[in-house]
């Protein structure tokens, strides 16, 4: 097994830990804990994780644990405990309400999971300082490659997802998004012109597909990294994607040679008056193949097989992916759609035929309502919630119907869910939801 310097892992750990801590502080400071997890009356659950709900005021404690464990990760302090706590608390937070689903939150959960199994505290960490037995200058090469592979998957799959007729041939949804930014210096003047829109959509697709390979190739790595920075800074300016650009830029540094990380750590050591020499002990962490390690490696192999295959699960569903969103999430489909919807729920007494419509604002925040109205699994879950709610109020023989309209990528809105289907009868499952009306257009491509 090849060994390599542990410095890249240490740098990745520090970047990741501090960025996560900043993300948590930002989230807290913006008041989003209250707004997204405490205020709403109802929360949308992931299928199979219905038992995971916000914890009321204790949700703040959860975020505190998450933030503190992120700092623990950055410092490499009680690393295994810190990263496990971080993974669990962060993932718990994300599972509390799928309204807030973001691809990069999923990415963070995956990285955190992977980091549990990597010796990223072997070098330049408090653990290594306090327990020399844990301190190694060299680690198995695969531990770094595993991180590279995960980053590469994100880019490459995001690129694959762009290979469709809306993105490449219609210039959608950039045709909707870019013109609004006409006030950006210089570039803004051209955001309503086709050549720039198509330049952005094509170069975006090519960038995503090629960047993992460009970063691997030493001679053009620097150019590739400049492209990474430019690309993500542009997305940061143009789109409300929060911390994502910074996470990806720093994640991409894992592709650099160990020399780069070594230098970075030397600078940090000097500034912080840390004796870096102490970590340069020339000790090699050798890959052992005892039972525990074999199990660990098999687990990671399964993890990556899932990562590579899971995004293709959409192929098992009939209908247009963008329309039904069956198999859409957890597949690195980032910034692909401008989708808007409207769903009006009708509560019917099956015996008397009496009915009334629901005011969604009574139960959902505007953000939840927006997400609900375009995604069938949200619509179904909400329909069941409404049934229970009105049953408690003493209504009987309840049937729940929805009149809904959705528009994607500049198309006119059309009816979305079959309004004659009683959603109270339908169950959530992995199966195709046959009550979604067909998409009356075609989006070609992957």
């Amino acid at each position: 097994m090849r060994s390599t310097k542990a410095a890249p892992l240490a740098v990745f750990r520090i970047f990741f830990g501090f960025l996560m801590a900043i993300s948590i502080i930002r989230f807290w400071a913006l008041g989003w804990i209250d707004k997204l997890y405490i205020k709403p009356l109802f929360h949308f659950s992931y299928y199979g994780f219905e038992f995971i709900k916000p914890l009321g005021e204790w949700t703040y404690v959860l975020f505190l644990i998450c933030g503190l464990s992120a700092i623990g990760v950055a410092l490499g302090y009680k690393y295994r405990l810190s990263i496990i706590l971080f993974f669990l608390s962060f993932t718990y937070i994300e599972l509390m309400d799928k309204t807030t689903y973001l691809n990069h939150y999923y990415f963070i959960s995956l990285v955190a999971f992977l980091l549990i199994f990597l010796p990223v505290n072997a070098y330049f960490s408090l653990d290594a300082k306090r327990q020399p037995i844990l301190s190694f200058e060299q680690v198995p090469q695969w531990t770094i490659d595993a991180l590279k592979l995960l980053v590469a998957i994100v880019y490459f799959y995001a690129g694959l997802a762009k290979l469709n007729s809306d993105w490449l041939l219609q210039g959608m949804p950039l045709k909707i998004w870019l013109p609004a930014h006409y006030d950006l210096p210089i570039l803004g003047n051209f955001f309503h012109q086709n050549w720039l829109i198509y330049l952005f959509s094509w170069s975006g697709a090519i960038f995503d597909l090629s960047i993992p390979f460009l970063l691997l190739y030493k001679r053009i790595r620097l150019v590739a990294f400049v492209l990474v920075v430019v690309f993500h800074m542009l997305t940061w300016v143009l789109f409300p994607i929060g911390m994502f650009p910074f996470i990806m830029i720093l994640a991409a540094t894992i592709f650099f040679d160990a020399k780069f990380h070594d230098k970075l750590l030397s600078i940090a050591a000097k500034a912080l008056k840390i004796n870096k020499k102490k970590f340069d002990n020339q000790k090699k962490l050798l890959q052992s193949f005892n039972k525990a390690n074999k199990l660990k490696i098999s687990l990671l192999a399964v993890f990556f097989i899932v990562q590579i295959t899971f995004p293709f699960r959409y192929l098992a569903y009939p209908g247009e992916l963008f329309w039904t969103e069956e198999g859409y999430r957890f597949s690195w489909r980032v910034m692909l759609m401008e989708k808007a919807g409207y769903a009006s729920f009708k509560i019917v007494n099956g015996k008397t035929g009496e009915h009334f419509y629901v005011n969604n604002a009574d139960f959902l925040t505007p953000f939840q309502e927006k997400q609900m109205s375009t995604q069938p699994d949200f619509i179904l879950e909400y329909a069941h919630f409404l049934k229970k709610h009105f049953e408690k109020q003493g209504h009987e023989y309840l049937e729940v119907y929805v009149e809904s309209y959705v528009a994607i990528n500049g198309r006119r809105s059309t009816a979305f869910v079959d309004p004659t289907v009683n959603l109270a009868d339908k169950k959530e499952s992995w199966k195709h939801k046959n009550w979604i009306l067909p998409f009356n257009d075609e989006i070609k491509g992957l």
Partner: protein
Amino acid sequence: MIIHHLNTKTTSIILSMAMIFFIVACSTENEPKASTDNFDRQAMLVNWADNIIIPAYDNYVGKLTDLTNAKNDFIANRTLSNLEALKIAWLEAYIAWQSVSMFEIGKAEELSLRDFTNVFPTSKTAIEEHVNSGTYDLTLPSSRNQQGFPAIDYLLHGAAENQEMILERFETEENLRNYLNDLINRLADLSTAVLQDWEGGYRDEFVNNDGSTASSSVNKLVNDYMFYYERTLRAGKIGIPAGVFSNTPLSDRVEAFYRRDVSKTLFMASLNATIDFFNGQYYNGNGQGESLKSYLDFLNSITDGSDLSGLINDQFAKSKAKAENLGENFYTEVENNNAQMLQTYDELQANTILLKVDMFQALNIRVDYVDADGD
């Protein structure tokens, strides 16, 4: 050394690429059409502020001054003709209100202007309690359904069986006069505060916040407009009384319930104001400026989509035509002619979809300030 050499080379490549890009950018920029064929959101905000919102508030505050004067005359001299003049002033101000209600932004949002002005049904019991005790606090959120136009409606048209008896009550009950006085003064104070804010610094703040983020003026006001259309106009004035949101019609939920014969007038004023705002129609006089319509038309020219603003205006016209068939008194319409009310609701509902789905998509309106990576 080789690495260093490469670095210099790559750096120079990047630099020259950037140079080329800037040269292209600047040279195209100097061509006359390059920036003029773009949409100017600020021009739209200026049109909204200067030609629609501020004149509408100005008019509303003026009508409230008339109402205050009529009220003062009536309290000083409780004659039938003064009561009638007061009722007329109330209606005029109520109609003027319909043109500003949708602009719940800035000071109006801070003061919860709409909720302190026009929450109905008003609480007859609570009002009578206040009148009896003479103690109340109109700034409390819980007192929203005990003030504003609906509460004045009750005092002027519903406080007793007929006009003579109402006059009699005002004559004998000082507390009733005080309550009327407080209600009208409060309306005037709130609206004046909002107008002064617009005429002070807020107009510039509003106009200069011309970006496209969730907190930009366009984004916020379009959300406010949509909320108004959906909740206040579609549901509040038609849907709720017609029983769309309940098992049975609720005829006591109509606007101006005690006066009865003006609910259509108020509704039409509100619908027309909504249509005019969409089209950028000036509040005073005949003129049009940049608007949601012209913004949609501009964006449509890029995406080559269907004529959305035309569809929305067609649907507005259909809603208006349907509503024209309604009688003046929505209470009796709900009681006797509810099918017509429901049809009007359906027409309004059809535009909810065009506005909230198609227009929101086209304008890329964000409903909330949160991170998102595409829908």
